[in-house]
């Protein structure tokens, strides 16, 4: 059992390395275009909704905290309380998606979503379009990750409620936790790249 646990964890870490490079391709695109069109990117970033973005960051960080708490508990003993924490984290994930959806709606109304409806007056239209292309792809993929994570948390929470996990067997909780924290970590960087540039200008 000990070994099985270790195997699953190592597998997840390797998978996360894969995920880093998956988003890495996008990050490179972003860096290239931001270095090419710094002014346009600052201008574009000012059109993002920093309040929603910051709120969402807080939501995800808190959700991660709940998962870390749940992991700490199941490592000690069987607990139905862990289920509450996991589901709580999942609910925060849902809140994140709802906020994100509202944000997409606002941007759609402002014609800022390339591929769906993009119109931007002025000279920088193309580079602003590049920024929002990156924005929609990156946040969209991240949202898919969040959605998957919510389902996983829901299932694991249900199993935890049935007292399936204990100090002897809690591999699914820790592995799902690793995934969820990673999703959180991706957002930390996306937040810095998408919402923060150009605020002081």
């Amino acid at each position, binding site marked *: 059992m000990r070994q099985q646990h270790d*195997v699953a964890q190592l597998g997840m870490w390797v998978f996360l390395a894969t995920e880093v490079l998956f988003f890495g391709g996008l990050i490179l695109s972003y860096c290239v275009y931001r270095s090419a069109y710094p002014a346009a990117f600052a201008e574009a970033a000012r059109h993002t909704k920093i309040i929603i973005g910051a709120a969402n960051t807080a939501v995800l960080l808190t959700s991660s905290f709940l998962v870390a708490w749940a992991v700490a508990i199941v490592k000690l003993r069987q607990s139905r309380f862990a289920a509450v924490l996991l589901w709580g984290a999942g609910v925060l994930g849902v809140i994140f998606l709802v906020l994100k959806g509202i944000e997409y709606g606002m941007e759609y109304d402002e014609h800022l979503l390339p591929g769906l409806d993009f119109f931007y007056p002025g000279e920088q239209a193309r580079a602003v379009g*590049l920024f929002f292309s990156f924005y929609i792809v990156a946040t969209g993929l991240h949202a898919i990750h969040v959605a998957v994570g919510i389902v996983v948390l829901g299932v694991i929470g249900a199993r935890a409620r049935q007292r399936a996990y204990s100090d002897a067997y809690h591999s699914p909780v820790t592995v799902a936790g690793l995934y969820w924290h990673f999703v959180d970590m991706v957002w930390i960087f996306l937040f810095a790249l998408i919402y923060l540039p150009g605020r002081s200008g």
Partner: protein
Amino acid sequence: MSAPRNYLTEDNRLRSWFFTTDHKRVAVLYFASITLFFFIGGAAATLIRLELINPQGHLVTSDVYNRLFTLHGVIMVWFFLIPSIPNTIGNFIVPLMIGARDLAFPRLNLASWYLFMAGGLTTLYAMFAGGVDTGWTFYTPFSTMYSNGYVVLAVTGVFIAGFSSILTGLNFIVTIHRLRVPGLTWYRLPLFLWSLYATSVILVLATPVLAMTLLLVALDRAFGIGIFDPARGGDPLLFQHLFWFYSHPAVYIMILPGMGVVSELIAVYSRKEVFGYKFVAWSAIAIAGVGFFVWGHHMFVSGQSPFAGLVFSFMSFIVAVPSAIKVFNWTATMHKGWIRYDAPMLYALGFIGLFTMGGLTGLFLACLAYDVYVTDTYFVVAHFHYIMVGGMVTAYFGGLHYWWPKITGRLYPEYWARAAAILIFFGFNMTFFPQFILGIEGMPRRYHVYPPEFQVWHVLSSAGASILAVAYALPLFYLGWSLFFGARAGANPWQATGLEWQTTSPPPKHNFEGTPIVKRKPYDFTVKGKARAQNA
């Protein structure tokens, strides 16, 4: 059947095959699938070669020709070469070699086959429904804006198959780290496992970048998000950077397992420990690492900066060093050995020769000023095929013959196998050596019609290709025959040393009765080699 139950006879309902989590059965599923893809890709190649006999191209139209070489490239690269050795031989042998009952994640392994098939069938559908005319490289803005093929569907298929690769790589990494039997330290691992480990690292770290790149291409084409589109401010070279960040290491995904197989074969049939074991082992890791630093050598004339050209050229020379180490060590392994010439050894020797020629012509391409001349000509085509077909496919056939008795419990007919090995070697050289000359003459690649002065070499190449086609079809028949009529193989027909030879052929469902324990280095032929020689 009086024979002991094995993984093949355990339960033969169809369901038990399609829902199996036994790594050996998954391997068999992969064998069947990639054989199918190999012959589909091969059929396209045959048509291409037939077409090129005539400089005016009477056989097919330009659009069909462009679809043919795209089909050939996409199918062969992603649905044959990349999965060939890891997913078939690797899947079958890795747990056996380390004394495990299965891979670390058996269900993930099965899932990876389903993903592979889903991706493969999607891509095939795209290829046959309307075709794709971008070449396997999907260069933008052609693929995103100007192509009139089923680009989105094709890249989706490759995208899905990419996840299959990632899962396989992940499975191997964890398996090799965590499931080795007691006593099997890293320096007691067969070199095949070192190679597969290095391959897996590349699979896991490079494939996601391809996935993202293709996703962006698909989104760009379907919705016009414009990340690579110069009309929208994008940089088409960014696509090339991302694509080759994956696709150059992918070349090592394709060749490293072949090197691993050949290391096994040379040792077994020379009955000697591999010379410089640690150097060969670490050179695999070095290739995997440095392989990530060289991608820009595909872009020397693309408009990337001259400075970047210098960096990438230099790194490309560096990555050739570990490959050279391997070749020298294989040769030295044969020194003072007891060399036998069973068919797998013939393939291994063929591999060394062809791979060396492929590698040396790689230096021409790494060399900046010469690359400017021969890049995008048949020189590249020839170089690539010397490595991939002359190297990888030859090694695949060698490994397939070598482990055939273990996989099926039957011996293949030695005479036919040797004949096929020799025929493949000559057919191959006749097909692809003329293409070096075409490249040096300046014949650009992906040309449907061409100036007539190139015709001589094209005809020669096509003649060779017909020999090659026959040679590749041969094993299909005699291996198929041996499944039913081949002599039964014992547990260890080659007197080899690996753990996989300590269990019965075919192995039982759980691979080993009890847990084997390893006390010696791999390739320890000292005892048996002497004895055999005295008998002979």
